[in-house]
């Protein structure tokens, strides 16, 4: 036998162990259920943010005000940006962290399951509160997702929608901080034996460093928001020059959060593509330690570049921030180099997850290059607050998130549901999305080059703005259409998908060593962990050319005996349902010894 069939080693649960009832979803503390809820909720907010973008593109398709006035338009771009950044991009990363971190490190759950559930509900309620601004008399917040002082003060934005926006971000920010604590505690404390730090999947590394940035950045935002709330509700003159305050303080605090934030958004998705490329290149990831060091450098440097968003204020140390901003391109370039290096010489195949990964690479590199351009103050003075910035931002953030989100969905869908998605629909979706995406945002770069400022509802006709705007709006339509084959693939898969098996892609990391969907508390057993690719080792250990060196020898020796698999976590239920509070059901996890030794 040359290849071990993992399906013979795991028994899939009779049904998906996710909650079955509505009340079950409300009360669950299972990391997989919470991960699914995060993914579904953030996808919902993506659709809301997309709908708002559609209204803006409809308005901007032709010159003149057709559909919405300037006041409504301000609300649209504010809530579009806020929903996409705070309610979609970051939480989708949290969804990935929730579902995959325990699976990838061989843990039964997150370290703090109830804190995890609390994070999710605070995030969801926060998101709904933000959107509820639309039903107040003055409408939703309308000062842009950056909420600059003094515009965001009571004089500039008197409506209750602004307060609801602040409250929403306080809730989602706190939720994000708690999630970060949970992720760090899980990765530091709950790794399986043999899962050393330098055997962690790169995705888990990235999520660890994302959590580290969240810990640093989100409390700063919360502090700034409390100051803003105090200045609005209690007349605290924090951002008011007349009262001795400083409006620029808001910008410093906001961007000290805001720039790590874009890496908080991006790093989980960098991790996603780093998981996907080796699998479909049939090669180990190129430069594992280089990638880890690059991620550490990015997350450290990300905290030193905030004021490059403030060059045009004329009140920051331009040289310092220009140099740090350009420095950050180096570790990012290392990552791109490593991704390409992984593919070079591989035997590549292109199912949908790999296609979306390549789409990510194209848009991310494009957006990254315009980012280096904008890091140069001389250029930034020209392009600041123009559509060039909007185009750059959407390429680097939207491209990263949307393409690798779909890569993640197509890649891990079989693990989550136990069903496959149909490849053909994925290809259709990918090409529609690629064309629509690039048409939309290349149009915005052209507009910026021609001098169109951002955040305006109307523009003069025949000034060179008509055609790029139309291109951009048509691109949006194509992008919207690309969601149809996706929805169709989801529906077909849920109704009658081909059964996936434990490891449909021949993956590398531990989540593929358990059944699809994983049982309650994830693993019935774990393979020995001897490299950063335990499942690859497991699959190929009996191949005559592989596994005959080093530590694998010990493993082969053990394999000859019946003690090949050490059962992990034979869960026993203690006192389920016996608690008067209704909150008492727990399971105590036991890590097993050699077979049969650990019967409760």
């Amino acid at each position: 036998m040359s290849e071990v069939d993992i399906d013979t080693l795991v028994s899939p649960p009779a049904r998906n162990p996710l909650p079955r009832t509505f009340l079950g979803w409300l009360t669950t503390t299972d990391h997989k259920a919470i991960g699914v809820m995060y993914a579904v909720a953030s996808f919902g907010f993506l659709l809301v943010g997309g709908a708002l973008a559609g209204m803006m593109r409809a308005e901007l398709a032709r010159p003149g005000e057709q559909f919405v006035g300037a006041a409504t338009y301000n609300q649209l771009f504010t809530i579009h940006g806020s929903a996409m950044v705070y309610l979609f991009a970051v939480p989708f990363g949290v969804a990935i962290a929730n579902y995959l971190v325990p699976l990838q490190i061989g843990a039964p759950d997150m370290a703090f399951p109830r804190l995890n559930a609390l994070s999710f509900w605070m995030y969801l309620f926060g998101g709904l509160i933000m959107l509820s601004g639309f039903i107040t008399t003055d409408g939703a917040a309308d000062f842009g997702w950056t909420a600059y002082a003094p515009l965001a003060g009571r004089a500039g934005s008197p409506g209750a929608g602004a307060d609801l926006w602040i409250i929403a971000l306080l809730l989602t920010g706190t939720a994000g901080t708690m999630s970060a604590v949970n992720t760090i505690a899980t990765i530091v404390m709950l790794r399986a034996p043999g899962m050393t730090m330098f055997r962690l999947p790169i995705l888990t590394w990235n999520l660890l460093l994302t959590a580290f940035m969240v810990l640093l950045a989100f409390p700063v935002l919360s502090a700034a928001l409390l100051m803003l709330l105090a200045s609005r509700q209690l007349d605290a003159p924090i951002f008011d020059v007349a009262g001795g305050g400083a409006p620029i303080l808001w910008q410093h605090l906001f961007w000290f959060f805001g720039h790590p934030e874009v890496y908080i958004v991006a790093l989980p998705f960098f991790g996603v593509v780093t998981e996907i490329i080796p699998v479909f290149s049939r090669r180990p990831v190129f430069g594992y330690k280089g990638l880890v060091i690059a991620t550490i450098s990015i997350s450290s440097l990300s905290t030193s570049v905030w004021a490059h968003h403030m060059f045009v204020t004329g009140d920051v140390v331009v040289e310092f921030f220009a140099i740090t901003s350009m420095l950050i391109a180096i570790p990012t370039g290392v990552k791109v180099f490593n991704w390409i290096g992984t593919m070079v010489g591989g035997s590549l195949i292109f199912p949908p997850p790999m296609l979306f990964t390549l789409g990510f690479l194209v848009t991310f590199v494009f957006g990254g290059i315009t980012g280096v351009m904008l890091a140069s103050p001389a250029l930034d003075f020209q392009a600041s607050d123009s559509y060039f910035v909007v185009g750059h931002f959407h390429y680097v953030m939207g491209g990263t998130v949307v393409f690798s989100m779909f890569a993640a969905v197509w890649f891990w869908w079989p693990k989550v549901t136990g069903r496959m998605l149909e490849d053909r629909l994925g290809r259709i979706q990918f090409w529609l999305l690629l064309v629509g995406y690039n048409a939309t945002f290349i149009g915005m770069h052209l507009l910026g080059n021609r001098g169109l400022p951002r955040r305006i509802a109307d523009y003069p006709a025949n000034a060179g703005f008509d055609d790029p705007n139309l291109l951009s709006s048509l691109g949006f339509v194509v992008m919207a259409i690309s969601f149809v084959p996706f929805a169709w693939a989801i529906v077909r898969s849920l109704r009658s998908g081909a059964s996936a098996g434990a490891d449909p892609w021949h993956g590398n990391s531990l989540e593929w060593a358990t059944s699809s969907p994983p049982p309650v508390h994830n693993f019935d057993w774990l393979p020995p962990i001897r490299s950063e690719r335990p499942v690859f080792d497991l699959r190929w250990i009996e191949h005559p050319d592989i596994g005959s060196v080093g530590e694998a020898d010990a493993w082969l020796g053990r394999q000859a005996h019946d003690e090949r698999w050490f059962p992990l976590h034979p869960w026993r239920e203690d006192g389920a349902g016996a608690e008067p509070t209704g909150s008492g059901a727990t399971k105590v996890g036991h890590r097993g010894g050699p077979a049969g030794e650990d019967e409760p």
Partner: protein
Amino acid sequence: MRVEATIWTATAVFFAALAALYVAVGGEAAGTSLLGIGFAFGGIIAVWLWRRVRTEPVPPEDRAAADMSDDAGSVGTFVVESWRPIGIAAGAAVALVGLVVGPWLAIIGALFAMFHLTGLVRDVR
């Protein structure tokens, strides 16, 4: 554990150096204090981890040749379901909305959140 401790130590050192550099090039007060806080955060976690490295034996997850059976025994207690998280979140959301709507709503929300927070603490075994 040693790797994690090193990472957090490096974090603290990085922020200390960056804060010093920022001051040297004429940075303003907000950024300087935030970078200083970065130093403190990293330092706190680093100190905790180094104490663990010193006092605890090398855990199985840090040993390259560890077997699953090396860590046999209880991994931990994991609550399966609880009404407390959604209760606290709902209370906190209502309390914050109360800051806009009126103090009466804030008080109701805060009491609701406190009730469930107490419950959460008491549920722990």
